[in-house]
């Protein structure tokens, strides 16, 4: 009974969005066919589908390249964000100085730095893209973790003080577990951002092997269907990153999932 009920609620959850997506794609197809829209303006979903499978080897290669860039940047950016937040939570002066700057930088289009980074490294180097991703990922992670480390329940702080606990105890037993939900909130944001940054950074030149470069070169060859097939791959890549961070969240904080299920 329980399993059946759970399956039904899961279907109720994922059913509607699938229907909406199918209807939208159907309308798109019908619109293109009915109005005889040229493929260089808007290719039909069926054309994109054909192109996707015609070039699936190349798409897979490009996805691996961009995915690796996004992953490397995500890992380094997250690590830097966590370390930075630990330092900032420990030293008030540093926090007061760094926080407004970080908040301001977080609102800026860091991707605009890509052409400059491209000039700093050799033309085939993946480093400039990974650097852009790292910086893009850093800020949301840094800001969220810092919030999680510092916005601690006042009762918990008094409790730890009543236990005469050391700073390292307070960090390990209270601040870090308190920051865990904030880490995964930021990771879910950063995972999508990382893929966007990795793909868009390729629009500004450099090595021609990732999804972004393939999209621009397909468009400049008027191969619009192919360009869209690469876009679909980029979307799938972003979704994959997001879902993986969702799974990690479930694994790291089973009590949260349990709680959501209970209420």
């Amino acid at each position: 009974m329980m399993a059946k009920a759970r399956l039904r609620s899961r279907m109720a959850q994922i059913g509607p969005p699938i229907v909406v997506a199918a209807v939208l794609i159907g309308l798109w197809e019908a619109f293109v066919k009915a109005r005889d829209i040229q493929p260089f303006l808007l290719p039909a979903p069926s054309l994109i589908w054909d192109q996707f499978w015609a070039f699936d080897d190349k798409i897979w290669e490009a996805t691996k390249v961009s995915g690796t860039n996004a992953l490397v940047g995500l890992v380094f950016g997250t690590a830097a964000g966590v370390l930075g937040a630990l330092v900032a939570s420990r030293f008030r002066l540093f926090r007061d100085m760094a926080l407004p700057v970080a908040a301001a930088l977080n609102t800026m289009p860091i991707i605009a730095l890509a052409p400059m980074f491209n000039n700093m490294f050799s033309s085939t180097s993946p480093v400039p893209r990974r650097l852009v991703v790292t910086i893009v990922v850093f800020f949301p992670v840094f800001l969220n973790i810092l919030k999680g480390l510092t916005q601690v329940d006042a009762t918990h702080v008094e409790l730890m003080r009543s236990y005469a606990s050391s700073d390292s105890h307070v960090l390990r037993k209270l601040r870090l577990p308190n920051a865990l939900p904030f880490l995964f909130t930021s990771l879910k944001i950063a995972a999508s951002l990382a893929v966007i940054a990795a793909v868009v950074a390729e629009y500004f030149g450099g090595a021609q092997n990732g999804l972004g470069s393939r999209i621009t070169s397909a468009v400049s060859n008027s191969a619009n269907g192919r360009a869209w097939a690469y876009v679909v791959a980029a979307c799938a890549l972003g979704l994959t990153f997001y879902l993986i961070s969702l799974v990690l969240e479930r694994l790291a904080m089973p009590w949260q999932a349990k709680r959501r299920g209970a209420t």
Partner: protein
Amino acid sequence: MNTPEPATVRAVAVSKIFNPDKANQVDALIDVDLTVEPGELVSLIGPSGCGKSTLLRLIANLIEPTSGELAVNGKSARQARLDQDYGMAFQQAGLFEWRTVARNIELPLELRKWSKAERRARASEMLELVKLGEFANHHPWELSGGMQQRVAIARALSFRPRMLLMDEPFGALDEMTREHMQAELLRICSETGTTVVFVTHSIPEAVYLSNRVVVMSPRPGRIVRVVDVPLGRRDDDTRESAEFFKKITEVREALRGTEGGGDLGPAEVERLRHAGGDLR
């Protein structure tokens, strides 16, 4: 019983002034004298701003007094905190939501570097004490407010401190749960021989629980009266006894203070004299 035990709490002329010499100076506590003997249950009661929570936090050494002497278990309040002579419970249960009930109770034991087996054993012992044995592996949000407070009390007592400091621990509970928790607290304290300092704004709660009720008044925070409550062993009948109501009336009149009428405590009379004509 040959060597007399030091008083559990001994405060002499303790004052706490927040933001001294600034525009927002607050005289939270002025000239407080208080002695709590081992095994006593003493309540601090008064309107908000009377400094009852401040006094509790001074005893807990969560804040330092501005002046005066404060000894806990015959040593400085700071040393008593470092030695973890007391356990503490707050109005919010303050459980860690990422820990199970049992592991919440184990927290202070972890900090004291107890082995896992010892922690397990003590946690289940404490859970039996607060009658939550079957909830060891639940998470806090799966428990009612009263159950969460019982876990908080079990956590506070897990390392067997001689004193329990409680800051309106039942304040957020409904009346029925509250009365049940009061009875539970008395049972636990008589089983463990724990001394309790208990902050509350409920008169019946203070009278029901305490050997003595310390009545405090605000602006500046001070003790106006100490009401002895020699009601003997408490049970459900206590709440309906004539003496119980007499004591409630006595505390209520002490709280009214400035409204005159009843018999004012000497400290209150003194305060009124200092206040001049300002009777608010």
